[in-house]
C-alpha cells in the first residue's frame, strides 16, 4: 500500500542520519576522563572577546578543563551566576547594594580594565579630535543641544568650522555595560542628568527627534558610519573597527578639566588614581576619575562568582582559571589584552582580586 511505500524510504533516511550522528559524535567525544571539568561562562559582551581569546590558551595548558563561553549581557551573567547555571558570570557593572544583600555569597572580581570612546561622524572633521565634555554630551542626548555649531560645543572647540546641522545621538537598544559606563560619566559630570535620567545598562533616554538605537557595538559603528552628523559611544575593543570606518574620536573632559584621548597611558592613569580607593569587595566605579591625565570612561570587567561551588573539584578549577586570567604573565599579559585594547589590573587590584578568589570553595 502507498503508506508503506512512503514509510520505507523515510525510515531508512532516519536510521542513516542517526547512524551518521552517532559516528560523528564518537569522533569528537573527548576521551572520558574522570576529572573533566565543565565550566560555563556567560554574560557581558564586552568581556566576551577577551574570554574567547583566553579559552584556547588556557585549555591548551589545562586539557582536562572544558570552558564554554556565552555573550548574553551583564544582567544575564549576574543572574545565571546567582542561580548556578553558570560558574562564572561576566559583568561590566558591579552589583548594587540590594543585589549583594540578596546574594551575600556572590563575589565581584575584576579581571581587566576596559574603556570606552565617544565617536562621531562629521564630514570633513573626523580627523580632528573634537573636545567634548560630560555636560555637553548630556545636553546632546537630552535634546538641549541640537546643532553641531551650538555655542556650548563651539566654545570647547574655538576655530573649528562646525556645521549648522542637527546632531543625531545614537544609543544602544540592548541593555549593555557600554550604556552603563557612558551614562555614569554623564551622571557624575552633570547633576541635571543624574537627577533626571541617572545611569544603568538601560536608561529612559530622553526623546530626541531622529535619535537612533543600534544593536551591539558593531551596530553602533555601522550606524555612525552610515549617518552623517551622528554621535555614539563605542567600547574600546572596537577601536580597529572605528578606525576602519574613519570615524572621529572625541577628546573627553576629565574631572580635572583636561581633554584626554583614550590611550593606554590615560587609562592607566585613571586606574592608578582610583586603585587606592578600591574597597576589598572591589565594587567601585572608575568613571570620571581624578587626575590631570586620567581618561574619564574606564571600568573594571568583573567576574561574578559564587563563593561556594557545587563541589571542591569545581571550586579548585574555577579558582585556577581566575588566577590564571589575572596573572600578569598569563591572562593579563599584553599579548591577550592588546587584541581588545584592554589594560592590565594594577598590582594592588590584582592582589585584592586574588584575595577574593581565595574565598571560592
Amino acid at each position, binding site marked *: 500500500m502507498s503508506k508503506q511505500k512512503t514509510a520505507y524510504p523515510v525510515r531508512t533516511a532516519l536510521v542513516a542520519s542517526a547512524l551518521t550522528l552517532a559516528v560523528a559524535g564518537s569522533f569528537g567525544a573527548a576521551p572520558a576522563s574522570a576529572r573533566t571539568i565543565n565550566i560555563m561562562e556567560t554574560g557581558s559582551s564586552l568581556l566576551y572577546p577577551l574570554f574567547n581569546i583566553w579559552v584556547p590558551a588556557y585549555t591548551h595548558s589545562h586539557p582536562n578543563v572544558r570552558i564554554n563561553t556565552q555573550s548574553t549581557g*551583564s544582567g544575564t551573567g549576574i543572574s545565571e551566576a546567582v542561580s548556578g547555571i553558570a560558574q562564572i558570570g561576566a559583568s561590566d557593572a558591579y552589583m548594587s547594594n540590594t543585589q549583594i544583600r540578596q546574594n551575600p555569597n556572590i563575589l565581584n572580581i575584576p579581571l581587566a580594565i576596559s574603556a570606552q570612546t565617544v565617536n562621531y561622524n562629521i564630514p570633513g572633521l573626523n580627523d580632528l579630535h573634537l573636545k567634548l565634555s560630560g555636560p555637553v554630551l548630556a545636553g546632546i542626548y537630552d535634546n538641549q543641544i541640537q546643532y553641531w555649531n551650538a555655542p556650548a560645543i563651539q566654545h570647547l572647540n574655538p576655530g573649528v568650522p562646525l556645521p549648522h546641522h542637527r546632531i*543625531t545621538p545614537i544609543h544602544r537598544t*540592548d541593555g549593555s555595560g557600554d550604556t552603563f559606563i557612558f551614562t555614569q560619566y554623564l551622571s557624575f559630570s552633570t547633576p541635571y542628568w543624574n537627577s533626571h535620567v541617572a545611569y544603568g545598562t*538601560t*536608561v529612559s533616554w530622553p526623546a530626541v527627534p*531622529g535619535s537612533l*538605537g543600534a*544593536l551591539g557595538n558593531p551596530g553602533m559603528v555601522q*550606524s555612525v558610519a*552610515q549617518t552623517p552628523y551622528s554621535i555614539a559611544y563605542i567600547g574600546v575593543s572596537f577601536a580597529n573597527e572605528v578606525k576602519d570606518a574613519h570615524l572621529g574620536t572625541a577628546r573627553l573632559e576629565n574631572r580635572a578639566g583636561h581633554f584626554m584621548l583614550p590611550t593606554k597611558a590615560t587609562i592607566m592613569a585613571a586606574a592608578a588614581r582610583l586603585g587606592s580607593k578600591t574597597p576589598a569587595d572591589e565594587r567601585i566605579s572608575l568613571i570620571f576619575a581624578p587626575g590631570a591625565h586620567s581618561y574619564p570612561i574606564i571600568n573594571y570587567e568583573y567576574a561574578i562568582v559564587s563563593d561556594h561551588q557545587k563541589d571542591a573539584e569545581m571550586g579548585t578549577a574555577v579558582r585556577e582559571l581566575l588566577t590564571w586570567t589575572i596573572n600578569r604573565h598569563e591572562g593579563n599579559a599584553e599579548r591577550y589584552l592588546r587584541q581588545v585594547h584592554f589594560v592590565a589590573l594594577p598590582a594592588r587590584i590584582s592582589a585584592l582580586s586574588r584575595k577574593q578568589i581565595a574565598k571560592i570553595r
Partner: protein
Amino acid sequence: MKLRPFRIALVLITSLIPLALIAILVFLGQYSWSAITFNGWHFLYGHIWNLGNLYADPIMQRGQLAPIGANYGILVFIVGTLLTSAIALLLAVPISIGVAVFLAEGLGSNLRTILSFVVELLAAVPSVVYGLWGYAVLTPLIAHSIGPDLRSTLGFLPFFAGPIGSGYGLLAASLVLALMVVPIIAATVRDALSQVPLETKEAAYALGATHFEVVRRAMLPTVRGNIIGACILGLGRALGETMAVLMVSGGALNYFPGNIYSPISTMASFIVSQLDSAMQDPTGMAVRSLAEIALILFIIAVITNIIARLLTGTSRNVSSV
C-alpha cells in the same frame, strides 16, 4: 456507545497544542501579576519606559517593591507593533499571491520546482541574518534611493514626507517582515492553486477566458479560504518576530514615529533587547513588566485574529469536490 480509540487518541494529542498555549498564558499571567498591579492601566497609555534607579535601594510603591523612579508605559511599542505588522501584511499579501500565481500557473513543472526553492529559501534565512542584511544593505538603500523615491512620488501624503534619516526605521522593519511572511503565504497559495481540479479550469477556458482570467476568476476564488488562513499565520509570524526587526528598526524609545522613515520599536523586539537589563533589577519588577508586555502582545494577537476572522466571514472554506 462505541469507543473510538483512534478518535480519542487524536483528540488527546491535538490537545497538546492548546495545552502548551494555556501553560504559557498561565505562566505569563502568574509571573507578571505583581507588575500588573503595580502598573495598572497606565501601562497601556503611558509612553515612557523607565527602569528607575537600580543602584539606589528600592522602595514600596503602590503596594509593590520597586526601584525609585520606575515607571513603565508601552504605548510606543504597541503602536510600533501594529504599524509594522499592518504595513508588512499590506505589502506581503498581494506580492505573495502574485508569486504563487507565477509559480503555479506561469511555469513548466521543472522551472516551477527550481524557482519554488527560491521562495522557500526565504523562509530558511535565519532572522538574525535578515537583520544583518537589513543593516548592511537595506538601510543604506532606503536612505539613498528607496526613501527619496517614495518621498518624491507619495510625498503629498504627510506619512511619506519629512526627513528620511538614516534608513533605520518603520519602512526597513516592515520590508524585512514582509520578506519573512511572503514564503508562508506564497507556499500555501501555490499548493492550493496546484490542487484546483482540472474541470474548473477547463470550464473557464471553455467560456473563452484568457489564461490569466482563468486564474483570477476561476481559481483564486476557490482558494480564498486558504489565502486567509495563510495570512493569519503570516500575521502571527509578523507579530512575534524579534531579531530581524530589532536590528533595523532604529530602537525608538519614548517617542512616536512621525512618518514612515522614523525609528520605531515593537513589543517583541523590545522584550529581547531589554531582557538582560531587566534582569539587573533586584526587585524583579522590570522582568515582570516585560512579561506583562508579552501578555499584552498575546492579547493583541487574539484580538487581531478575531478581527481577521470576522472581516472575512468564515475561517476555512476550502472547496473539495
